[in-house]
């Protein structure tokens, strides 16, 4: 039986083909349709935690990165109502951490910042949490700045699924949730993470940084100076961009 050709979902009225086993996000990315997302990266298992990719499927909200595509789905994606909710979610991500874009070395290369711009976010709207979070600069090649962590768990999954390690995990509950390192001391230096690992480069914000580097790409040539976050093949661009530090 051929499952590849005939099945169709509709996203914002457009016919989008899909294969069995694909999620709505998979189908949308393949069809070059942008659904805002932060915790999703093709090649890693879907996570469904950031909720930015929420779409209306036959009138009911669902995370497109975890919801399997199935025949007959009528999906609303790029609507004012959904984008307004996405903006609120993005604002909450900003105010829960300490995101000081003006001095952050990830500015211009930060997916969270780019989505903020994409959704027309002009301020944080909600009161700032100003959490006190620990910077871990113990590693020789990497810095973990938890101020900027959005708990997307891309590093957690990249370490487990791509690097064959288990460097990171999320600990705590509610507003006390935070990224921890699976080592006896809890320090990055005592983990087995290496500069070459996917987990060292996958952070969409400025939480995992390459040590002794930063601000090397001039304004005008940073990722989101020349790309839109809505480009659906951006993941490779971003990874290539950060990996140039290794040279």
């Amino acid at each position, binding site marked *: 039986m051929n499952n590849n050709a005939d099945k169709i979902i509709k996203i914002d009225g457009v016919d989008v083909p899909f294969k069995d086993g694909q999620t709505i996000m998979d189908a949308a990315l393949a069809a070059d349709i942008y659904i805002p997302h932060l915790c999703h990266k093709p090649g890693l298992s879907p996570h469904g935690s950031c909720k930015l990719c929420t779409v209306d499927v036959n009138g009911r909200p669902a995370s497109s990165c975890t919801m399997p595509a199935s025949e007959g789905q009528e999906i609303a994606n790029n609507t004012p109502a959904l984008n307004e909710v996405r903006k609120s979610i993005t604002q909450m991500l900003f105010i829960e951490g300490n995101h000081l874009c*003006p*001095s952050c*070395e990830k500015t211009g290369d930060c997916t969270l910042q780019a989505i903020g711009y994409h959704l027309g976010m002009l301020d944080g709207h909600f009161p700032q949490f100003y959490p006190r979070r620990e*910077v871990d*600069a*113990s590693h020789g090649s990497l*810095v973990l*700045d938890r101020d900027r962590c959005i708990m997307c768990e891309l590093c957690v999954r990249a370490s487990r699924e791509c690097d064959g390690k288990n460097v990171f995990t999320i600990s705590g509950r509610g507003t006390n949730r935070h990224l921890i390192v699976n080592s006896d001391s809890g320090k990055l230096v005592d983990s087995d993470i290496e500069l070459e690992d996917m987990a060292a480069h996958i952070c969409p914000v400025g939480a995992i*940084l390459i*040590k*002794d*580097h*930063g*601000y*090397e*790409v*001039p*304004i*005008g040539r940073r990722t989101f100076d020349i790309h839109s976050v809505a480009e659906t093949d951006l993941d490779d661009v971003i990874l290539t961009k950060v990996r140039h530090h290794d040279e």
Partner: protein
Amino acid sequence: MSNNENLRRIAVDPVTRVEGHGKITLLLDEANHVREARFHIVEFRGFEKFIQGRPYWEVPYFVQRLCGICPVSHHLAAAKAVDQLVGVDELTPTSTKLRKLLHFGQTMQSHALHFFHLSSPDLLFGFGSNLEHRNIIGVIEDFPDLALKGVRLRKYGQQVIEVISGKRIHGAATVPGGMNKALTIEERDRLLADINDVLTWAQEAVDLNEKIHTSHPENHGFGRLNSNYLSMVGDKGELELYHGGLRANKSDGSSIFDQFDYRGYYNIIREEVRSWSYMKFPYLTELGRDDGWYRVGPLARINNCDYIATPLAEAARKSFKAFGNGGFVHDTLAYHWARMIEVLHCAEAIRDLLLDPEILGTDLVMKGEKREEGVGVIEAPRGTLFHHYKVNEDGTIKKANLIVSTTSNNQAMNESVRSVANEYLDGNEITEGLLNHLEVAIRAYDPCLSCATHALGKMPLEVELIGADGEAVDRIEKASSGAINRTL
């Protein structure tokens, strides 16, 4: 020490047409003699504390947010310190020239902003002239050609900054040991296209200032201080804004020290804390707390240097020097004149750098062995700026000390306020003119307490005169609209 119980207190709060928040208080005895004059800085920033624990390479980008007018100065002073943290004492020739170019653009735009937008109304219309006209709008109405040239001078400086750092304010230029972008031929040619106009406007600004000073002898004593002067000079004693040794001279021109390696600045400068201001009071260790205060900035630099390496600015310096009969010029208002001489120097230096083939080089970054400590010093528009950082083994900042230019002028601004108050305060009657005289003295220093915003006289102001018995004798309020009301 004054017996404050028998003194009257006048407060000017806040000081206007400077950026940020400061206030003046005067204590007068029963004969109206000024016994104490204080210029308080009432804002607190805390950068030295909250960069602790941050990665060292982030520092130039963090601390440039200290200021919206001279961010490049903080960026470069921090970058020079960070160069040392990565073991680089000398950049590639191209990177050094790019940083100088950036710094000249910064100095030009900051100086132009200060003179034309903030201070020229006082100097062109008179300190006690019609308040409603004594602002940049009045300058545009009465002297449109001059105002436009001032705006264009500033714009050009900002264009230089933008070409090198990507943005006119708070750009991204330096990396540890170098710069992140080479200058393209197109960018260079775009800047060269306007340089002759810029040189002409800068020369006119110098000529205007010379005329203002020579044609108003009554202002020679305005806030005048026979002070010590501190500045950086080049290795031949020439005016130097980016990198050199420290020189301090006494008011009679005699040397206190010369070509001092700024990395040991803490051996020659101490800082005193006083309870009534958030700004510290630095002094030269050798002369002690009472006599060691000094002035920095354009007046200090033009007085201290032996010559200026660019011909038009050097000719202007010689006229300046002649105004001081060959010695130091101590007039506080001469800050403005010296400032415009520096603008002319910047214009000439920008032209020379743009015509230097090495400015187009692509060898931008040097590497070295890491160190635990770095000191970066630069001549910011408002004076000598010190950034000192110590790092932990993991590359995070352990300790930071900044002596911002305006801090060095703290005692001098206080002395100038005292001097002007003594000369111009007349009886119990407070006039808006008096009020502005005090502010004119402070504005001459272009204080960077004011880093955040230019209020352009729109900030509300209140002056209160309290009699020796503690009763309010007089009170004047200036509303944000500029209206003056006597409220007592």
